[in-house]
């Protein structure tokens, strides 16, 4: 009796194991033979035309949010509506950018792959260079008149490889994105003017400290969104912040004089308690929490976040008044933050997609910059999330809860694949906070920011020396960040900066500079990122 049970159990186990292993296979074929059961009944426009089927991979940087709450993304209400509007049948997947390497290695590549950054980004794992995706020049010329008209040249250059366009970019018309936020109500209490220079900035922070502000300036680990001083002295250590010096293309932190001044300033801030003593371990979560709780007096963030901050901080501090001010200038009159690469995300078409379908896919993206698309992605569905009166005036149900905000983010961020991502004018025009944001973009941000030279695709020497390569567009190389943090904490003298540059050079920096200079001189994927 017992024997039978034993055998039965082990057989079940063995079968289960085999079934489990085999279970992966059928998934590959799913997109092809999946019935268009979703949205089949609600397609008045496309009439008899068969919807175009394709799988679409959308990138994200977070492992939470709206897309993780929806049990089946292909039955999500916004996806269904998008399918209805465009006459497509999408098989949508969302994947964290960091996991793309695994996807490419498994060779299960969707028809359309969206990824953060351009073709040379790390997450693309060299797939464009290996010919996994098709060149799009002819298709774009024929089927995407709107995109060709709207997307700036620098963006097309960024998504090109060996002279051919390989992706459709979600683009930025204005590269100046980040801004300096201040609590105007606190500033008024100090009786000071908004700071315009680094010294005035320090004085305002000191006055905040006297007022009892817990965190006069909100720092964060690795100087991410805490680089106001690095910007003022124009020594941002980022990958798109190379500059020409004596005929060579070098990283901006080679400017010893200004770098040392910037580090001295941070050190002063650290010693006087103007920044948190533990800034080396302040994560992005701590950073957001602190700002939302109304703790800092000044902080750096994307300008598009203004309406959000006004709402969130007022929940904690009802009389908070938050504004964007021009960033304090350094001795050379420079200031602000780095200019973003003109490409936010890029969408590639798998080379195995046949030409007819590829054309339809290009049209799908081209539709995204039309007024109809803008209205859908911005406001949602008429009668559901917004109403429109006879004169065309829109009344939009603004999201209130975090869940609603995330749902809006999904609709007007994640699935709105291709558009000008600088700001959403339609949405911002609706209320006061939005108008203040638009004003900040037009009056403040357009006047500041730091241009630089970047490489698309990335320098090959970067992958050889991981400690010298910037892990993301707004974080410096580990070697540099480590020394900077140690110097601010007083563990190394700031006067040693020339030694840091020597160390950088000897550990592979020489090769990076040589390659950068050659590519710049030969105009091989070296892009100067600047205001047009």
């Amino acid at each position, binding site marked *: 009796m017992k024997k039978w049970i034993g055998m039965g159990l082990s*057989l079940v186990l063995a079968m289960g194991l085999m079934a489990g292993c085999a279970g992966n296979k059928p998934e590959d074929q799913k997109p092809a033979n999946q019935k268009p059961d979703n949205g089949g009944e609600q397609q008045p426009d496309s009439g008899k035309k068969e919807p175009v089927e394709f799988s679409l991979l959308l990138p994200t940087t977070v492992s939470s949010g709206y897309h993780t709450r929806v049990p089946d993304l292909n039955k999500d209400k916004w996806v269904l509506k998008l399918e209805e509007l465009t006459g497509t049948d999408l098989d949508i997947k969302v994947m964290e950018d960091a996991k793309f390497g695994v996807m*490419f290695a498994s060779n299960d590549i969707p028809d359309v792959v969206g990824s953060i950054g351009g073709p040379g980004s790390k997450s693309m794992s060299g797939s464009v260079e290996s010919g996994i995706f098709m060149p799009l020049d002819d298709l774009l010329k024929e089927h995407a008149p709107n995109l060709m008209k709207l997307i700036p040249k620098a963006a097309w250059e960024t998504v090109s490889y060996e002279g051919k366009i390989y992706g459709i970019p979600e683009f930025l018309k204005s590269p100046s994105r980040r801004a300096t936020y201040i609590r105007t109500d606190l500033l008024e209490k100090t009786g000071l003017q908004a700071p315009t220079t680094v010294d005035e900035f320090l004085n305002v922070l000191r006055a905040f400290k006297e007022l009892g502000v817990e965190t006069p300036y909100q720092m964060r680990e690795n100087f991410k969104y805490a680089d106001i001083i690095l910007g003022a002295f124009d020594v941002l250590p980022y990958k798109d912040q190379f500059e020409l010096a004596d005929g060579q293309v070098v990283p901006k932190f080679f400017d010893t004089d200004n770098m040392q001044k910037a580090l001295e300033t941070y050190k002063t801030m650290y010693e006087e308690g103007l920044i948190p003593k533990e800034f080396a371990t302040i994560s992005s979560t701590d950073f957001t929490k602190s700002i939302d709780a109304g703790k800092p007096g000044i902080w750096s963030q994307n300008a598009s976040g203004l309406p959000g901050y006004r709402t969130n901080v007022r929940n904690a501090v009802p009389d908070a008044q938050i504004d964007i001010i021009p960033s304090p200038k350094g001795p050379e009159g420079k200031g602000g933050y780095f200019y973003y690469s003109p490409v936010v995300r890029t969408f590639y078409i798998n080379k195995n997609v046949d030409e007819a379908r590829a054309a339809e896919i290009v049209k799908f993206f081209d539709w995204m910059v039309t007024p109809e698309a803008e209205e859908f992605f911005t406001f949602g569905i008429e009668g559901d999330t917004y109403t429109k009166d006879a004169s065309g005036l829109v009344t939009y149900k603004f999201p209130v809860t975090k869940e609603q905000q995330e749902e809006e983010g999904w609709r007007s961020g994640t699935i709105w694949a291709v558009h000008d991502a600088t700001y959403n004018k339609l949405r911002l025009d609706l209320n006061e906070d939005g108008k203040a944001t638009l004003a900040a973009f037009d009056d403040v941000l357009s006047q500041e920011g730091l241009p630089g030279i970047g490489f698309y695709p990335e320098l090959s020497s970067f992958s050889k020396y991981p400690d010298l390569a910037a892990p993301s567009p707004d974080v410096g190389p*580990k070697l540099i960040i480590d020394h900077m943090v140690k110097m601010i904490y007083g563990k190394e003298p700031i006067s040693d900066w020339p030694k840091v540059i020597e160390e950088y050079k000897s550990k592979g920096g020489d090769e990076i500079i040589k390659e950068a200079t050659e590519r710049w001189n030969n105009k091989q994927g070296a892009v100067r990122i600047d205001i047009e």
Partner: protein
Amino acid sequence: MAKVETSDRMMYQFTTPGHKIKFMRKHWPLYVLSIPGIIFFLIFRYIPMFGSVIAFQDYNIFKGIRGSSWVGLDQFKRMLEYAEFLPILKNTILIGLYDLCFAFPVPIILALLLNELRIMAYKRIVQTVVYMPHFLSWVIVGGVVVGVLSPSTGIVNHLLSMFGIEPIYFLGENSYIRSILIGSGIWKDSGWGTIIYLAAIAGINPDLYEAAQMDGASRFRQVASITVPCILPTIVILFLLQIGNFLDFGFERVFVFLNPLNSENGEIIDTYVYRAGLVDRQYSYTTAIGLFKSIVGLALIMIGNKFSKKVTGDGLY
């Protein structure tokens, strides 16, 4: 003494093949039972081993193993030439050593203590409470530890300030990071580690204790002369396995605590592999490092096993 002789193990010598088949027939359910395990090891342990050949290639995921070019030992050379390699190896060895010295004995002591508890309900509650942290992910444990040790809001510094001690930035000092790593590991996993020892203790023949009590042995004496010797084989086996994993301290548990101020003493091979391999996608290079680690692990386990056989007469194989 409960010295386990190798002869305790079942050894069958078959005189003829027929004899063997007969034996297998007799015990066929055991063979069937072993199938899932064998399949598991084949698919998930043995087949992936062939993937290690990419350590000798310049691997490109789109060309695959057959299409990528062979580079011999270049990846290993690059590893040894990397300026930070020796400090990282040193950190890995030191942290592994500390783990072995300080974290390994804790579950044993905890199990012995738990075993002495008299009130069943209390024992169960304590057991459950000490297991709990095992089910938290390292990211959460990291967040908790960073919070507890924070110089401005952490409870530890709050207590220190009551004694007039200036707040200490524990995570900002090279000298504390290893203690934090080992300490958080003990907090998280030592309760879980007691399970196997408690099971071993439960298997001890109660007659031994009864006899000892008759002879007037104290509780302490009973532990020292009966419990510890009886679970010694278990301890030895776990110790050897631990030695085999000497260089595998684990990536996550270190990564959550690393920052520029403590990475000098805290960075280990696993975190470097993450940085260079997964972030920068250098598959061959990091496979080479992984292979190096496995070989060191294998060597250590063989040395440990030999040593253990000499000293205790028992080993893994």
